[in-house]
C-alpha cells in the first residue's frame, strides 16, 4: 500500500542513530508545546504519544529506560503541577493502566472473562476507607447521625502498610469468590462474576445497618491521606521550582505523589506479570486459555491455576483501591459500578488482551477519550449552544439543542463501540500479544528448510 518512496524512508529511519533522534525530538517537541501552551489538549497529546514513539522504534534497552524515566519522573510531574488537569489525566491513566494490567492476567492470560473486576478494587478501597477514617467509631450510628468530633482510627503512616494488606485481602476475596464458580464454563463464569460485582456494590450500599460499616450510598469521607514527608514539597520546589514558575502547594504535591505511587504499582505489576508469564504458571494459564481439555490432560490443575490467576489479578485491584481511597479521601459505592468493570475490560480488549504494552496503550487511549475528547466535546457543544450558530441544511439552531445532551456522560457508548468494533475487526487488539522468542542453541540446524 505505501509507495516505495515512503517505505524506504521508514526503513532508513528505523536504523542507526535515527530512532534515538526521533524519540528525543518527539519528547522535546511535546514538552515544549505543553510548556508554552499549558491549556492545549493537542499539545498534551503530542507529549503523551511520545511514549508510543519510544515503544515503536527499536533502540537499546538502556536508552529506552532512561528516556522513559525522564518522561515519567521528571517531565510529567513538572508539566502536571503547572496544569493540574494534566496531572489528573496522567494519574487516571496510571490507575486504569494498573487495573487493566491486573484484569489482563485474568482475561488475557488465563482467558477467564471477569465482568466484576471492580469488586476487588472496591474491597481495597473500602479497606482503607474503613481503617483510615472515623468509620470505626461511626459503627453504632446511622448514616448522618454521628457526632462530628470523632477521631481517625489509624494514622496516615498506616496507609503504606495497608497497600500490602490489601494485596492479601483482595487475593483472599478472589479465592473465596472464585472457588465455587471457577469450574463453570466461560460464558457462565462471566455472568456470575458480573453478579459478584453487583453483590459487592449492593453490600457497600446497604451495610450501613445493622452496624454502619460503609455509610451506605453517601460513602465514607474524610479518609486519611498518607503521610508525606514535608521535605518532599521543599525538595520539589528547590529542584523544579524554577521550571514550574510558582511554588507548589502540598496539595498539588500529594497528587504528584499518588501519581508516582501508581507508577510504582504499575512497574511492580509489569515485573510480576512478565516473570509469571515466562514460567510454569504463565504457560499453564495460556494453555488453559487455548484448550482446557488438553491442558488438564497434560496435568495442569485447572481450578488451582484459575484461582491463582483470579487471586493475582484481584490483588492488584486491591492495591489500587487503597490508593484510590487515599487520593480521593472519599469513597462511595457509585465508583464501583458494572460500567467501571466494562470500562477496564474495554481497555484490555482495545489494547490487546495478553499484551502488556497493548493494555497500557488501551488504558491511556480510553482514559484520554473519556477525560479529554468526550469532555472537550461537551465544552464545545455548550459553546455552540450559547452562540447563534445554525446547522445549515436542516436549519437547526444550536441554541435549541437539548441541555441534556452532554457527551461527557456517554462513556457507555464509547465502551460499547470499542468492544463491538474490536471484536469484529481486530479481536487481537491494537498491539497483539506475542510469545517470547527463545534463543534455542541446538535448534538452529536446519532452520528455513
Amino acid at each position, binding site marked *: 500500500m505505501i509507495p516505495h518512496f515512503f517505505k524506504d524512508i521508514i526503513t532508513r529511519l528505523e536504523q542507526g542513530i535515527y530512532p534515538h533522534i526521533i524519540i528525543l525530538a518527539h519528547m522535546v517537541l511535546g514538552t515544549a508545546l505543553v510548556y508554552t501552551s499549558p491549556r492545549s489538549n493537542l499539545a498534551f497529546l503530542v507529549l503523551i504519544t511520545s511514549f508510543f514513539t519510544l515503544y515503536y522504534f527499536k533502540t537499546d534497552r538502556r536508552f529506552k529506560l532512561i528516556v522513559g524515566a525522564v518522561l515519567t519522573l521528571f517531565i510529567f510531574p513538572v508539566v502536571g503541577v503547572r496544569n493540574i488537569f494534566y496531572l489528573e489525566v496522567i494519574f487516571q491513566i496510571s490507575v486504569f493502566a494498573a487495573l487493566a494490567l491486573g484484569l489482563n492476567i485474568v482475561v488475557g492470560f488465563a482467558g477467564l472473562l471477569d465482568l466484576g473486576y471492580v469488586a476487588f478494587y472496591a474491597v481495597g478501597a473500602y479497606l482503607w476507607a474503613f481503617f483510615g477514617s472515623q468509620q470505626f467509631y461511626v459503627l453504632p450510628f446511622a448514616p448522618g447521625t454521628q457526632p462530628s468530633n470523632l477521631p481517625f482510627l489509624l494514622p496516615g503512616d498506616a496507609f503504606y502498610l495497608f497497600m500490602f494488606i490489601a494485596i492479601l485481602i483482595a487475593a483472599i476475596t478472589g479465592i473465596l469468590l472464585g472457588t465455587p464458580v471457577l469450574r463453570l464454563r466461560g460464558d457462565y463464569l462471566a455472568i456470575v462474576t458480573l453478579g459478584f460485582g453487583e453483590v459487592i456494590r449492593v453490600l457497600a450500599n446497604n451495610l450501613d445497618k445493622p452496624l454502619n460499616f460503609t455509610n451506605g450510598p453517601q460513602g465514607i469521607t474524610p479518609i486519611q491521606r498518607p503521610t508525606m514527608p514535608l521535605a518532599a514539597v521543599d525538595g520539589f520546589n528547590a529542584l523544579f521550582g524554577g521550571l514550574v514558575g510558582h511554588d507548589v502547594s502540598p496539595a498539588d504535591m500529594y497528587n504528584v505523589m499518588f501519581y508516582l505511587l501508581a507508577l510504582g504499582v504499575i512497574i511492580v505489576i509489569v515485573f510480576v506479570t512478565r516473570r509469571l508469564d515466562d514460567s*510454569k504458571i504463565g504457560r499453564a494459564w495460556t494453555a488453559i486459555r487455548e484448550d482446557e*481439555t*488438553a491442558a488438564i490432560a*497434560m*496435568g495442569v490443575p485447572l481450578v488451582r491455576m484459575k484461582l491463582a490467576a483470579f487471586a493475582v489479578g484481584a490483588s492488584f485491584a486491591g492495591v489500587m483501591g487503597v490508593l484510590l481511597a487515599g487520593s480521593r479521601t472519599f469513597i462511595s459505592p457509585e465508583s464501583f459500578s458494572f460500567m467501571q468493570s466494562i470500562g477496564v475490560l474495554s481497555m484490555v480488549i482495545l489494547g490487546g488482551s495478553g499484551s502488556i504494552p497493548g493494555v497500557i496503550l488501551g488504558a491511556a487511549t480510553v482514559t484520554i477519550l473519556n477525560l479529554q475528547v468526550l469532555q472537550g466535546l461537551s465544552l464545545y457543544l455548550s459553546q455552540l449552544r450559547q452562540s447563534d450558530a445554525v446547522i445549515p441544511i436542516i436549519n437547526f439552531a444550536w441554541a435549541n439543542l437539548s441541555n441534556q445532551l452532554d457527551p461527557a456522560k456517554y462513556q457507555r457508548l464509547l465502551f460499547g463501540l470499542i468492544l463491538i468494533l474490536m471484536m469484529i475487526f481486530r479481536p487481537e487488539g491494537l498491539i497483539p500479544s506475542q510469545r517470547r522468542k527463545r534463543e534455542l542453541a541446538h*535448534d538452529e540446524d536446519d532452520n528455513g528448510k
Partner: protein
Amino acid sequence: MALLETTNVVKKFGGLIAVNRVSFQLDAGRIISIIGPNGAGKTTFFNTLTGIYHPEEGRIIFNGKSLHKLRPDQIASRGISRTFQNIRLFGNMSVIENILVGMHVHLKQSPIDTLFHLPFFKKEEKESERKALELMTYVGLKGVGNELARNLPYGGQRRLEIARALAAAPLMLLLDEPAAGMNPQETEDIIRLFRRIRDEKGITILLIEHDMRVVMNISEWICVMDHGEKIAEGTPQEIRSDSRVIEAYLGRGAVAGQHEEKIA
C-alpha cells in the same frame, strides 16, 4: 503384574451405554491396539481412563493404584499421557512452550523462585528447555522451536502432540488415531517412532486406530470393541480370523466417514 487393569468398567450417557463392562489387562512395555467400528466406545473408554469421564461402575487400577474419582490432571501425574483424535495443541503458544506445558507436573519451581529468578528457577528452565529440544529432535521436529503450534503442517502437529505427551515422562502413552490423515510414507515413519518410544524409553503404548495396516503392523495384542463391549482379544493373527470381528466390521463397516463420539 499388569500395568493397567480395568474390571467391568461401565460408562453411560443417559440411556446410552457407551462402555459396557469392559475388563482389560495391559502388561508394561507392550504395544496394544483397541479397534472397532465407529461408535464402538473406544474414545469413551480412553476418556474414562484419563479421568475426563468417571465410570459409573467398575475399577481401573493403574500401576497398582486405583484411579477412582481422580481428576485428569491427577491421572496425568500418575503417569498416563495422551494425544487426541482431533489434534488439540495450544495453537497460540510456540512449539517449545507446548512441550514445556507437558512437563508441568515435573517442574518444581515455586512462585518465589519465579518472581526473583532464583538459581533453581534458572537451572530448571534451562534444563527443561534442553529436554524439550531433545524431544523435538526425537519426534523429528527440528528448527521450529519458536514457531506457533498452529502454523505447523499437519504431520508436524501430530508429532508435536506426541512430543508434548512424552514430555510428561509417562509410564503409558494413549494415542487416539495417531495415523489419521497421514500418507503411507508418514504412516510408516510414525510407526517407527512408536516402536522406538517403546524400545528406547520403555513406555507402554495403547492406541486406537482405524488404519488396519498400522494396527496389524505394530500391535502385539489387539482388543476389539463393538457397541461398548469388548468382543474379542488376541494377537493380530488371531484377530484377523475371528468371526465375530469380521461380522462387526462387515455388518456396519460400510458406514464410513462418520464422526466418532467427541470428548467434552
